[in-house]
């Protein structure tokens, strides 16, 4: 019987098996089923049935694609991943920037594979990977923008890009990841970001995901934060059929601080999953998490947040708030806050709410002439205005707000029937 139970935890994934065989790999490969605690609410069965093609390099032609990306006010250092491949011409722009080194990497970084098969696939199938290192005491004048763009393609394709980011002591950097697609074709982007912050460093890390209704996106962020350093993350998801953004973060130095925030705005049958794990390994470290999901249609949002406080991490502070607002009777919010505390002196709070828009607010706005949809949109934009204020960078905040408002305007069905 034990074998049966074990089997249920794994979903057969023919694409990965074949890809592993093509690479001469002997590792067992599968996808986690909903029988796994951390995949309980996000079902990868549909992904497992897609027959992905090997991504052909020779189709790379960024110039012929139709897309537009709002510029970063004040400019940015852009790195393009085009259909999973790094566009090398962009790297030439990085050759003489003081304190910044960008290079292609032969591997996906030194990440412990653990039991996560998505990381295993990313590492073993060796998609394009890049190393970014910021040397000591460098304050970059412009943010680094990582653009993951998917063009039209005839067959479903999968790629496994990687980014290794190292910010050395005393440096300050802003990184903006942007995932977008040209068409509604099927693809799967399975990325791995490995981030290391040295002592007294600062990283503002933003992530905007606005992909097609047929896209799959799984991202794994492994973050290590050193003494007296600060890490801020804000992620906005408005797209993909299924996305899972996972952050595994360790506060490894005294007085280290992290702030993980974000929002899902999803409709239709989309599934948007943010799963975080913050490990306080050092005393006087602080963490804060605020996520807000806004859900229409038959969509589902998954917010899982775990805070672990190690025995030696005394006098830490942890704060977590996971909120979901349902705009439709068929939308679903799955929220799981978790605390695992081994130290004695800690201050940890966590909360989770699931609700609808406030009727009295809607009536007030309607009584001033706004139709129901405009009233809903105004209230949602108001909630998000407050939420976007968690973003420290004005430029990033403007980009996020613009993407959110345009997604809401372009897709009023999300406002639903409630």
């Amino acid at each position, binding site marked *: 019987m034990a074998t049966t139970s074990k089997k249920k935890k794994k979903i057969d994934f023919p694409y990965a098996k074949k890809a592993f065989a093509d690479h001469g790999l002997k590792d067992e490969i599968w996808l986690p089923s909903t029988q796994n605690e951390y995949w309980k609410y996000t079902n990868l069965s549909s992904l497992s049935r897609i027959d992905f093609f090997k991504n052909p390099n020779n189709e790379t032609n960024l110039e012929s694609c139709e897309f537009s990306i709002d510029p970063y006010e004040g400019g940015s250092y852009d790195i393009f991943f085009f259909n999973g491949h790094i566009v090398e011409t962009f790297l030439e722009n990085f050759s003489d920037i003081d304190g910044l080194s960008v290079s292609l990497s032969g591997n996906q970084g030194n990440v412990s594979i653990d039991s996560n098969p998505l990381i295993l696939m990313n590492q073993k199938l060796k998609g394009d990977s890049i190393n970014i290192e910021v040397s000591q005491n460098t304050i970059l004048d412009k943010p680094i923008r990582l653009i993951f763009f998917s063009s039209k393609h005839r067959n479903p394709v999968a790629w496994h890009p990687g980014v290794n980011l190292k910010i050395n002591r005393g440096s300050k950097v802003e990184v903006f990841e942007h995932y977008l697609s040209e068409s509604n074709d099927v693809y799967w982007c399975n990325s791995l970001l490995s981030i290391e912050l040295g002592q007294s460093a600062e990283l503002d890390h933003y992530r905007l995901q606005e992909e097609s209704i047929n896209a799959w996106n799984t991202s794994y962020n492994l973050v290590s934060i050193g003494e007296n350093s600060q890490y801020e993350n804000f992620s906005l998801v408005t797209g993909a059929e299924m996305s899972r953004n996972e952050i595994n973060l360790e506060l490894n130095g005294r007085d280290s601080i992290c702030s993980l925030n974000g929002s899902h705005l999803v409709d239709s049958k989309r599934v948007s999953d943010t799963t975080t794990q913050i490990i306080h390994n050092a005393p006087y470290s602080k963490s804060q998490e605020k996520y807000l999901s806004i859900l229409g249609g038959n969509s589902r949002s998954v917010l899982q947040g775990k805070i672990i406080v190690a025995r030696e991490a005394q006098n830490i502070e942890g704060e977590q708030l996971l909120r979901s607002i349902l705009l439709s009777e068929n939308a679903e919010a799955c929220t799981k806050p978790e605390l695992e505390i081994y130290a004695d002196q800690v201050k940890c709070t966590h909360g989770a709410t699931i609700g609808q828009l406030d*009727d009295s607010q809607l009536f*007030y706005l*309607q009584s001033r*002439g706004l*139709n129901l949809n405009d009233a809903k949109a*105004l209230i949602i*934009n108001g*909630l998000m*205005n407050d939420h976007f204020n968690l973003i420290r960078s004005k430029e990033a905040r403007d980009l996020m707000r613009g993407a959110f408002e345009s997604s809401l305007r372009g897709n009023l069905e999300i406002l639903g029937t409630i």
Partner: protein
Amino acid sequence: MVKDHKESSLPLLSINSLQVSVESNIILKDFSLSVSEGEVHVIMGPNGSGKSTLSHVLAGKDGYNIIDGKIDFNGEDLLSLTPEERACKGMFLGFQYPVEIPGVPSGTFLKEAVNSVRKYRGEAEYDAMQFLSLIKDVCKTMDISDQMLRRPLNVGFSGGEKKRHEILQMALLEPSLAILDETDSGLDIDALRTVANGINGLLAPNRSVILITHYQRMLEYIKPDFIHILYEGKIVLTGGMELVETLEKDGYAGLELDSAKKK
């Protein structure tokens, strides 16, 4: 002296034998009221008499069960209209408790509201610059600063600020019928004067007002055409300032509402 109704062909608002319940409680019973263009009606009444229910039903709030009766507004069946249609067709409810909308600057809200109504009426929408110049003078009259327009709507506003903002909205939306639900409650003397002056400034031959209030102090500033006493869901007395004087002297007991109801 009670003023005669204006001899126009149709009243602006005509409520006939309205019966309204909330859950299983009947709140308004056989309620009738007629308001003609340019008239100011005051509705007073003890707690629980149905004043706020009346204002909510007129503005179209959910949760009220219309058992019987009819309401005509400008010759149309009001009860068939959505709240926003009522607003766009000229009805305005000044809220007793204006609702807070976090994250929405009050200036943004005002522009959205004015443009929604203009769009409905087939008029050109204002851009940001036009709108700012439009509201400048009204804001000054209502003592509303630029800084207040940047604050989220009603969030952290004092009682006076909220009510001043309600009258500002009324001024910008230019309604033909304003229902002001206890607009005077929670105001100090200075705020009351500002709000009352604001309302007075908006009185016009083509604008009617239903002022719902508990207190006579608002009536020191605004002179009504009719005063109605609402009791147990029905208007039991209609008159002029003499009703207020009796109320002031002897309270509702002095009006002998139970015997008035039987008449």
